[in-house]
């Protein structure tokens, strides 16, 4: 199973800034290994974020998002103590969900 994400969610005024780091290779499929064999593409395809259980944003990614991806976005109306959930699914079907509390 994939390593946990790091999620920081900080409220300021009427919005919360969410910063996420995900542990993933994000292999492009364009590279070759030392033996000259192509390394298959392996990347996060879909990201889903929820505020107190309600989906607020989804994203689709391609393999040109950088390794160990970073994502930042702002959730309207989220306040300290609320839950922010982030999930991802990669092209091999591997997935990961982590949760953070807004501070």
């Amino acid at each position, binding site marked *: 199973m994939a390593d946990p994400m790091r999620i920081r969610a900080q409220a300021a005024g009427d919005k919360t800034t969410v910063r996420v780091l995900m542990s993933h290779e994000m292999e492009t499929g364009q590279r070759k290994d030392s033996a000259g064999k192509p390394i298959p593409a392996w990347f996060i395809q879909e990201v889903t974020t929820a505020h107190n259980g309600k989906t607020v944003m989804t994203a689709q990614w391609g393999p040109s998002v950088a390794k160990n991806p970073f*994502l930042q976005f702002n959730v*309207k109306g989220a306040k300290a103590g609320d839950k922010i959930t982030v999930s991802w699914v990669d092209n091999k079907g591997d997935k990961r969900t982590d949760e953070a509390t807004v501070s």
Partner: protein
Amino acid sequence: MQTRREMLAHSATVAGLLATAGLLPQTALAAWPQAAFEAKTMADAAKALGGGAPAPSGDVTITGPDIAENGAVVPVGAATTLPGVKQLLLLVEKNPSVLAAVFNVTDAVEANFNTRVKMGQSSNVYAVAMMADGKVLYAQKEIKVTLGGCGG
């Protein structure tokens, strides 16, 4: 829950399939817009996502550095203050496939997203706003990718 061993076995199978098929990976998600992610131009990517011809707009913002010390990690952001934005896209003109990311906007989030992309070489990057009325508006910025380190 899968064990680590099962997961590895599963991954190996998928990798094997990919290797023999020699194709872009089969998507685990029906919603993943494969045609858009295979597009070679901004116009083709926008079209694959159901939009019209892209037009430049001062209401769309692309953020990023002027120079990237390394193309493997280039911080970029897309934002707009326009009402009626459905999706924000990030694209890199000279990457093998131009589209890097699609963010689906709802009323619960600001239309303002930051991530990091890979760039194979110096290139224009685009932030594209896909509007509810089918309009496609974009902003562009050139980012220089430098060669660094000892190079060995």
